[in-house]
């Protein structure tokens, strides 16, 4: 899987769930490279913006798309990594603010 191919797949996935990919394509491709690095490293696509443990059971909430994605897109217009966003976020009618970490502290200790 290449980042470009994954980009195509995830563009379709995002549309199917009412989201979009961040329109900053170079940024998204960088995220997807991180996602594929984690897949190679751990065997699953752990969030590239969080430290994975390498233990799938512990990381199941941060396998992309993470379980916090829908809540974050709803509240901030963007997931934690700014991979999945709302149309309003892409259009700039929502401010691009830093999405706080929603994962409970110590979740992967």
């Amino acid at each position, binding site marked *: 899987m290449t980042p470009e191919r994954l980009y195509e797949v995830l563009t379709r996935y995002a549309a199917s769930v009412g989201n979009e990919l961040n329109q900053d394509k170079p940024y998204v491709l960088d995220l997807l490279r991180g996602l594929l690095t984690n897949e190679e490293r751990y065997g699953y696509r752990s969030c590239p*913006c969080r*430290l994975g443990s390498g233990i799938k059971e512990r990381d199941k909430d941060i396998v992309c798309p993470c379980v916090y994605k829908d809540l974050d897109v709803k509240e901030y217009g963007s997931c934690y*990594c700014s991979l999945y966003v709302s149309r309003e976020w892409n259009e700039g009618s929502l401010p691009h603010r830093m999405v706080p970490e929603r994962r409970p502290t110590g979740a992967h200790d």
Partner: protein
Amino acid sequence: MGSGTKTVRFYALSTCPVCKKVKLYLDGHAVSYAYVEVDRLEGGEQWLASQEVRKHNPAGSYPTVVIEEVITGHDEEGLKRALGLA
């Protein structure tokens, strides 16, 4: 290390593009820092680094930049500046 000297430690993930943006920002301002790519560390070293991050940032999120300033002696001006006192 003299009064007013700042030390900067930058904890990042190699997979995280936001970490790269922060790195570019610091590099663009010629800031010297100790750089730790936590996800590239092995076992125990990674655990220790992630605990250091949590000590300063309980969310354990990345990037985390820790900036510490050393003030020595009776340096009220230095303390005022470092602590943002009026």
